[in-house]
Structures are given as C-alpha cells and as structure tokens.
C-alpha cells in the first residue's frame, strides 16, 4: 500500500465496455457464493469465464473496484470511529502519512474545513481505538475530534452507477 493514494485516474462510467459496466454494477449484492463464482457470472452474461476473471483483475488494478468481498455492519465485529484533525496546511501531507502508517486506518481524506484531515479507525475493540487515537493526537500535536457512531441509518448498500 502506497503512503499516498492521490495518483489515481478517473473514467466516466459510460466509457467502460458493456461487460465492465455489468461487472461493476450488477454484482454488488448478488455475488455468487458457489464453487466457481466467476464461471457462474460468465454463464449468466453469456461470455467466457476467462474473460470475466481477466476483466475483474483489470478493474481491480485500475482502482475502479476496491474489492470483491464483504461490507460489514458497523461495530458488529470490530469497533470503528470517525476522527478528524485540525492540521496547519504546511503540515498536512506529513500528518496524513503519519496517520496512514497505522494499519487500523482505512479511510483518510483531506476535506475543506478547519478540521481538514478526516479518517476512520477500525480495530478489534474500543480500547485499541483509544490507544491509536491517543497516539495520533500526541504525534500530530493537533486538535482531534473523536466522533463515535451512535446510529447507522443508512450504510454502504452499494451504488447504482446506471
């Protein structure tokens, strides 16, 4: 994993082939739990299984797909928290890289606000979260917001690209 994740390309959905669009959009929920899932997808779409595997690999390496796998219900297995730092602009990159160096960090964005660095920490339990956040607060020497989840009304249920 690179320390910085800013060098990415963007392609309009319409510029993808029909097969790519189908793979991106149609299997966000009903991904087959079968011995040969890519074969089953190929049969459903009427294409060669090798082509499905190859196309998924390309979509993954180009970054269009983050993964094929589970989205967990928040705080059902581990514990997670949203946090934000108010970082002086000339220290932002350095601080973002320090935050990224923790394996417990999964999302880390600059946002337009006084609190300008926003990240999600996920760990096995709350004590571990506090430990990581205490450490980040100390190292950054910046004001920190700790914003634990109280209610998830709507979580990542996929994204209709059509």
């Amino acid at each position, binding site marked *: *994993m690179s320390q*910085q994740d*800013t060098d*990415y390309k*963007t392609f*309009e959905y319409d510029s993808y082939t029909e097969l790519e669009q189908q793979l*991106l959009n149609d299997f*966000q*929920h*009903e*991904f087959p*739990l079968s*011995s*040969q*899932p*890519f*074969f089953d997808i190929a049969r459903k779409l009427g294409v060669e*299984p090798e082509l499905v*595997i190859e196309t998924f690999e390309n979509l*993954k390496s*180009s*970054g*269009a*797909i*983050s*993964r*094929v*796998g*589970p*989205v*967990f219900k928040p705080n059902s*297995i*581990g514990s997670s928290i949203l946090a934000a730092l108010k970082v002086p602009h000339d220290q932002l990159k350095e601080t973002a*890289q320090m*935050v*990224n160096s923790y*394996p*417990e960090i*999964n999302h*880390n964005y600059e*946002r*337009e*606000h006084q609190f300008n660095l*926003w990240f999600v920490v*996920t760990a096995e339990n709350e004590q571990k979260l506090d430990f990581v956040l205490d450490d980040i607060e100390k190292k950054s020497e910046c*004001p920190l917001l*700790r*914003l*634990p*989840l*109280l*209610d*998830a*009304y*709507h*979580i*990542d*249920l996929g*994204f*209709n690209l059509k």
Partner: protein
Amino acid sequence: MKLVVDNSEPEIAIDSIDQNLIASIQNGLPICKRPYAKIADQLELSENEVIDRISKLLDRGFIKRFGVVVRHHELGYKENAMIVWDIPDDQVQIIANKMKSYSFVTLCYRRARQLPEWRYNLYCMIHGKSRDEVMNLLNEMLDSNNWHSFEYDILFSKQRFKQRAANYILNQGMLEK
C-alpha cells in the same frame, strides 16, 4: 404470511474460525477460478465450510452485503461531500429517515457531538460528477423539506490519502509492519 427477520442486531458471537475467515476475506476475495477453495486451503477448511460460514455471517447480519465494492472517484463521481447537521436530538430519527430516502444519499449516520468544538450530530454523504451536481442535489433536499433552519456545513473532499477495506482483525503480515 411472510416471516420478517430483523437482523439489525447480531447477537450470537462469532467463533475463532469465523475470525480467521474474516481476516482472510476483509480485503476481498482472490480473483481466480475457485476463490473460496483458495481461502479454504489457507485456513485448512473445506470449500463448502467457507461458503457456508460466509452465508451464515450474511444471514446473521454481521455482513451487510457481499459483492463488488466500487470506488466512486475512479468511476467519474469525482466530488463527494460530507454534509454535517446539527439536529435536535428528538428530531434526528425523523430527519434521518427522510434523508436516507434520497437515492443520491449514500450514507447517513448519527454520531456523538464533541462540544464545544463540534456541534454536529447527523452526517450524510452525497457523491456527484461535479460540485454543481452535488450542490443541486443538496439544495433540492433542503428546499423540498424546508430544512434551511438547521445549521449544517458542507465538507467536500479534496485529497484522498487512503481508501481501502477496514481491517477488523489484523493478520500477521500487518502486525509485522
């Protein structure tokens, strides 16, 4: 009559085999002919048991969905705004229910305030192909519900430093880092 199963509160604990399985799949399946068999080999389980355990994690509500996870930015949705709202506690549920009914709202959460620095308690996310598109969608929501009296702030994302799956369970490779 159809039985309605509420899986919103998973209660039965996961065992150590589930934990190992979660550690293996949290960053995604391998893209190969028999991905579940490959994971089964690593965990010394049968392919069937891997598939069966993933199905059960879904049924029990630990996994909310299982499938392709796309990255919005790479698909042309370059702008994402996190909109944070200060909503009276006794209204937050009603407002959130309305908010999440919009198809363009991808996430909607209530989080703790941190007073005095942070007064906001409700969050929603809107993705769009341009800033104008995001602002138009937001204004449409504000106008049609007459939500202009609420305090809110719009935080557009600028740079992405990291976006990947959460590590709920750290595996050996990560700990050696």
